[in-house]
């Protein structure tokens, strides 16, 4: 019989004993969760399956399980480990006896509870959330019908028309600027946008810029700007073409 291959079926772990040991040593399994007594029982059951007592297996199991128990005890009472080591054997025995007796009492209490549960198994009663307590009413203050009518009359009156004139944006027609730019270009081959439109409002300048884009789309002008925010220079298309010809032939 090989102790390490002992199959375990515990609440916290299911598998061979050596895997349990590995997991505990790697701290991947909380030893506090492991029921050591259940391991002992599993081992005893396996032992009983054989006719002869396997002393080697017993010895190995004792060593392993006692190491496991010591680890678990240290894990359960970390702060007391040092304290208990210094105790005299009699005092330690006394302390252990006290704890065992306390546990024994609780085991007896649990046994009593189980008996009680069985004897009270015939008790049926209604279960559910407690019914809601009635809500206290909040009384309204005394009301005057005349005053209510007065308020309703105020609400019923049609409100005065509010003028929205100041909110309207007035856009000059784009065509106006198209004409204006074309007439300038008839007189001059080049002009600066800022110079030509200085003194106009923001909206007028924006519409003028749209007119500029329109002219560019039609191929009537070329637009140049040396750098962002630099003056925008507009050139008549036929002049622009002549310039590039000159450049290329040079």
């Amino acid at each position, binding site marked *: 019989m090989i102790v390490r291959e002992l199959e375990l079926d515990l609440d916290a772990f299911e598998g061979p004993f050596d895997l349990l040991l590995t997991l505990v040593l790697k701290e991947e399994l909380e030893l506090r969760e492991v029921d050591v007594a259940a391991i002992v029982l599993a081992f005893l059951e396996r032992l009983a399956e054989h006719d002869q007592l396997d002393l080697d297996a017993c010895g190995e199991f004792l060593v392993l399980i006692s190491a496991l128990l010591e680890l678990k005890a240290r894990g359960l009472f970390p702060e007391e480990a040092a304290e208990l080591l210094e105790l005299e054997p009699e005092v330690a*025995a006394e302390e252990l006896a006290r704890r065992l007796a306390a546990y*024994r009492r609780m085991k007896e209490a*649990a046994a009593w509870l189980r008996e009680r549960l069985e004897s009270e198994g*015939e*008790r*049926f*009663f209604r279960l559910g959330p407690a019914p809601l307590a009635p809500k206290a009413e909040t009384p309204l203050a005394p009301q005057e019908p005349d005053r209510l009518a007065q308020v309703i009359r105020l609400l019923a009156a049609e409100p005065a028309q509010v003028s929205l004139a100041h909110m309207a944006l007035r856009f000059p027609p784009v065509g106006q600027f198209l004409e204006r730019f074309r007439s300038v270009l008839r007189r001059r081959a080049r002009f600066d946008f800022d110079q030509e439109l200085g003194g106009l409002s923001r909206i007028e300048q924006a519409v003028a810029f749209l007119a500029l884009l329109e002219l560019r789309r039609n191929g009537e002008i070329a637009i140049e700007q040396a750098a962002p925010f630099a003056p925008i220079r507009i050139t008549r298309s036929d002049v622009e073409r002549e310039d590039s010809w000159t450049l290329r032939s040079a």
Partner: protein
Amino acid sequence: MDAPLRLISSNPLDQLARTIEALLVVASAPLGVEELADAADDDAERVEAALGLVGERYREGRSGIVLEHVAGGWAFRAAREAAQACARLYEKPAQRNLSQASLETLAIVAYLGPSSRPDIARIRGVSADSAVANLVERGLIAEAGREEAGAIRYRTTPLFERIFGLESLSALPRLDDVGETADAIRDRLHAVAEKRSA
């Protein structure tokens, strides 16, 4: 023909007893004498006397409904003779399949509570986490504040008392009659200690 059903004819407490019956039918948890007195708008002494009348009427062998003093109050439950019929209709999830670990944990909380998980682990020698979570889910224990170190403490609920048929936690039996066993353990440990020191 239309005269009200009388518990005990011509008793001056009849009216109050009927009100108490009505309150207990509506309630889903045991009601204390004070609560009954408040709801019935009567005084506690008269309520106690009227409860005597109700108890006389609703008892085992006489009615399918039984008045009982449980979990610090008064409540109706089904008569034991109807238990099988009730069991066919209704399951009891709170107390079904309570494991040994859960019962030991419940015993510790009932006798020594409020107790924290470390308190319970210290006595049982194994982690109490899953047993505590299980009992909380069943509604048998509930949180009751925290220890100074921050661990949550638990106490038993009125449902625990009701399921176990206890008037209150003081109705739990005393557990100091295991002295002999403790002494026996102590003697055995002393014997081992002497051998080791020898």
